[in-house]
Structures are given as C-alpha cells and as structure tokens.
C-alpha cells in the first residue's frame, strides 16, 4: 500500500468536511436538550476527573456552556465555563492570520505564534483549575 500516494490525493484533502456530520448531530442534540434541567433524561456524560476525584477541572461545565451558547445566553455560558473566551480569541486570531496572510500580507499578525500569549494561556487555565476548586465566597462563582 502506497500511503504517500493516498495522502497526496486531491479529494482526500476535503475529507475533513466529513467531520461536519457528527458535529451537526451534536449541535442539534445540545440545542434541544438542556444538561442543567435534564434529570435522567438524555445522555450527558460526566467528566472522568470529576467522577474520580470530585474536583472541578477547567473543562467542567462545558456541556451547559455549549447549550447556553447555542441559545445565545452568553452571560450564563461564561458562568459555567470561561475557557470559551480563550477559544473564541484563538479562533478569531487564527482566522485573521489566515486571511491577512492571503489578502493583505502587510498587516499580517499571528497572535498564536507569540510565546507570551501561549504562556498566558497556560497560567490562565491552571489558575482557573485551582481557583474554581476553592470553596470560599469569591471563588464559588467560578465553579460550574
């Protein structure tokens, strides 16, 4: 089997578009079902880290946040999980980098290629992980 030949096939390049099918089903599923109100109905897997240790991880609350975000309730989504802000910034900067590289290379700027930005993300995520497990007053708002 010549894998190199398959890899360079010009139709396989668009195979990533097949990912749209499961993503479409997931989006409709999370639009129609609310993980917060579901008591036993529907299928919402819990985080393994949360099941084992009982602590919150930086990804906890992401299903509720996705449901709220699909209904455009951004405030509630931020209450459940704050990592979506980082994700949004990253996707916007990546899109800007791709567009500017192609159409106006004079203003090319890629935020994701700056090391201070990536170290900032590490500090934010690890700090969020620690802070949302502190069971005292100002930090309880961070818990999902």
């Amino acid at each position, binding site marked *: 089997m010549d894998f190199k030949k398959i890899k360079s096939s010009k139709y396989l390049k668009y195979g990533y578009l097949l990912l749209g099918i499961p993503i479409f089903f997931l989006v409709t599923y999370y639009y129609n079902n609310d993980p917060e109100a579901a008591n036993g109905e529907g299928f919402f897997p819990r985080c393994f880290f949360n099941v084992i240790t009982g602590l919150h991880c930086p*990804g906890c609350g992401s299903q509720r946040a996705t449901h709220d975000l699909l209904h455009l309730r951004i405030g509630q989504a931020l209450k459940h999980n704050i*990592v979506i802000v*980082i994700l949004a910034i990253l996707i916007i900067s990546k899109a800007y980098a791709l567009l500017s590289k192609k159409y106006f290379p004079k203003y090319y700027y890629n935020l994701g290629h700056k090391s201070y930005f990536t170290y900032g993300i*590490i500090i934010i*995520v690890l700090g969020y*992980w620690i802070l949302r497990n502190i069971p005292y007053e100002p930090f309880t708002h961070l818990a999902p």
Partner: protein
Amino acid sequence: MLSFSESKYSFKLDVHKLKLITMENQPTSSGQVPERPNNYLILAIVTTFLCCNITGVVSIVYAAQVNAKWEGGNYEGAISDSKNAKLWGLIGLIGGAVLMGIIFLFYGAMIAAAISSGGSGF
C-alpha cells in the same frame, strides 16, 4: 556572541556552539530555517474544553514550548514539541470519544434492560 544586522536580516554568531543563528522569519532563500511548525493550540484548548483535561493541559504546555523554542532559535525542538502537542491533543480527543461511546453502549444496554424487565424507567 557576535551579531550584526542588515535592513532585512539579522544574524547572530554563537561562537561557543560554532553555529550561525538566523533571527526573524527569513524569506525562502535561506536554506537553514525550516518551515514553521503548527503549534496545535486550538486542538489543545478544544481537548481541554471537552472531556480530557489532563492530556489537554499537557498539549497546551507543549504548544507553548513550540513558540518559545522557535523564538529562541531551537527549530528541531520546536518541531518535536509540535508533534508532541498534536499527539497528546489527539489522544485526548479520540480517547475521550471512544470512552464516551463505550459508556453510551453500557447506558443503552441498561435502558433496554430496564424497559424489557418492565421497570419504572426514569
């Protein structure tokens, strides 16, 4: 450490390592600088946001080191860290999807058992 710069390029000669380090993103004419590796930061954040936080955090750490090493001129280290970031991110995503599928199978089997045995259900 000896360094000089022209309008477009800036070179740095590391005498102790006997190695010429080219700074900044060079045009394609210089054969020394390989193509900048993808740092897979979006994959890492998505993995953290979805199920598998631990492999996601490992992936974020590798992704951050890609940038730091690239800016420091360590191109081989940057490329290997890029591969590691991709590996850990994909382990988290695919492993999480497989685990979810297994749990879903058990869950479905439990529902089917509850229905067939005439249980009250939910």
